[in-house]
């Protein structure tokens, strides 16, 4: 399954899972779907049979509220069965509303509270260097999340340490829970901010798989940020760029229309 096919299947699974569970952050899930599809298909060295294989690449989805996108992608890559995916958010499920490491092997660290992924990813990249490992560290953050100061502590230190083994992908959909990031607490110019902290920065279309692959796999002497310009709710016309779809659940009719739209895409 190539990354485009995987992204289409992930979008279908997101709609199915959230409709079945009756909750989930649907707009955020659809926003990072292409990023995760490219990571799992063409970037990460993982083994679903050994989710804690010491030499695996590390991925942290720091925007833990996009858990359904992560679980759906993990399902298509052999970490979960479809039956288990449908247990999302049910009592005693391993698939908590936010990813929990102790519940589900393959989750590297608990996320959900924002601003946690980047510092942990920096520790991983420092650790890989100390033990002379070849594995790489990837962290996907939201954009609104970058308003948390802990990220900038981590970004500053990663730049200082020249952590070339670290890649951050920012899901730059320009919407936070209730409003536009630029109206709330503006982030632009985001690439210049990272560059000023000693990172290589690239801005790309976060739904263009070729662009994602090229940007994420590019190597350099510095930590790298890929600012992936995305559309919240991508693939479903009535959800796109609508703050209300941050965590709204579609009705039966909306579900049918949404499923038809994401299945027809490309």
């Amino acid at each position, binding site marked *: 399954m190539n990354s485009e096919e995987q992204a289409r299947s992930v979008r279908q699974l997101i709609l199915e899972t959230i409709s079945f569970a009756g909750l989930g952050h649907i707009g955020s899930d659809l926003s990072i779907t292409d990023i995760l599809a490219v990571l799992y298909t063409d970037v990460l060295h993982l083994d679903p049979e050994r989710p804690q294989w*010491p030499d695996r690449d*590390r991925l942290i989805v720091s925007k833990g509220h996009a858990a359904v996108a992560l679980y759906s992608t993990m399902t298509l890559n052999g970490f979960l069965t479809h039956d288990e995916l449908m247990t999302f958010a049910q009592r005693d499920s391993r698939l908590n509303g936010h990813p*929990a*490491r*102790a519940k589900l092997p393959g989750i*590297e*660290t*608990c*996320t*959900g*509270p924002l*601003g*946690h992924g*980047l*510092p*942990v*990813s*920096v*520790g*991983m*990249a*420092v*650790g*890989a260097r*100390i*033990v002379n*490992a070849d594995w790489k*560290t990837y962290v996907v953050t939201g954009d609104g999340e970058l308003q948390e*100061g*802990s990220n900038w*502590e*981590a970004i*500053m*230190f990663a730049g*200082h340490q020249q952590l070339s083994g670290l890649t951050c992908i920012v899901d730059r959909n320009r919407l936070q829970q209730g409003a536009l990031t630029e109206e709330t607490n503006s982030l632009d110019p985001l690439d210049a901010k990272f560059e000023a902290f000693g990172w290589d920065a690239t801005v790309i279309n976060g739904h263009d798989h070729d662009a994602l692959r090229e940007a994420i796999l590019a190597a350099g002497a510095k930590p790298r940020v890929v600012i992936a310009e995305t559309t919240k709710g991508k693939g479903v016309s009535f959800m796109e760029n609508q703050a209300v779809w941050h965590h709204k659940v579609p009705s039966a009719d909306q579900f049918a229309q949404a499923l038809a739209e994401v299945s027809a895409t490309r």
Partner: protein
Amino acid sequence: MTTENAIDCRKPFAATLVELAGKDDRIVAVCNDSVGSSFLGEFKELFPERLINVGIAEQNMVGVGAGLANAGLIPFVCAASPFLTGRALEQIKADVAYSAANVKLCGMSPGFAYGELGATHHSIEDIAWLRAIDGLKIVVPADARQTTAAVRWAADAPSPAFLRISRTPVPDVTDASEIFEPGRAQTLRLGNDATLIACGTVVWRALQAAKILSDEGLKTRVINMASLAPIDADTVIRAAEETAAIVTVEESVPRGGLGGAVAEVVVANTPVPMRMLGTEAFAPTASVEDLYEHFGLGAEQIADSLREVLAR
């Protein structure tokens, strides 16, 4: 109350860490510009690639610790306790405890050890804050020997832990042969009239109070509760059953601290008259020695408190 044989517990902490790091290259130290105050100078000299100084950034420091643990290392994250625990509390909860990351959080210079620097620099809330977090072991060594034992245990135990490392010098009160075990208290002095339960470097003060009381014929048991989480409930219950009163002694806030932890066990099992001594409020501007007196933690004052509870 001073003594010639008193030791700053940061010394045995740092010496033990260096010794263990020499044998196990998974051991790394993380700090927040606190190489000096955490006594990590020798560690830095011997293992420069394993000393990660993130600068003055505690949230990142704890997150980095969790990431290092994920990479298979054993990080000892060292910082002044008020900033480690207060500033990075959510990282301790989510990245370390909830994620079950093998991180050793080392809260240096806790209590009111910073004296005149004031309440911003006092770490009196740390035990109460951390005791509410599931899965985090909390260790408050009483002296240099127990600090050494606690560091050895922490390096071996594959679980998140908080070690509270005092800078206020105290003489050794524990046995050099003791191995630290979580959930096991030590009875340092026998007695069946009343009980003092203490943790940290005020254990020494509790022992002095017990001596004063013993001279009056009041046989006072002294328990060193270095393991706050898990607490040694059996030892507390025995004290409640066998003696007439319990007074707890700590250099921290008793609400949620040692006092609260002991009271939880007592109330649920064998109610007995109690009093909880500790730092009840933000401190006035005063030296460390004056603050012990201010908070009723002098040996005579501890003895007075015990007499008062018995007279109730």
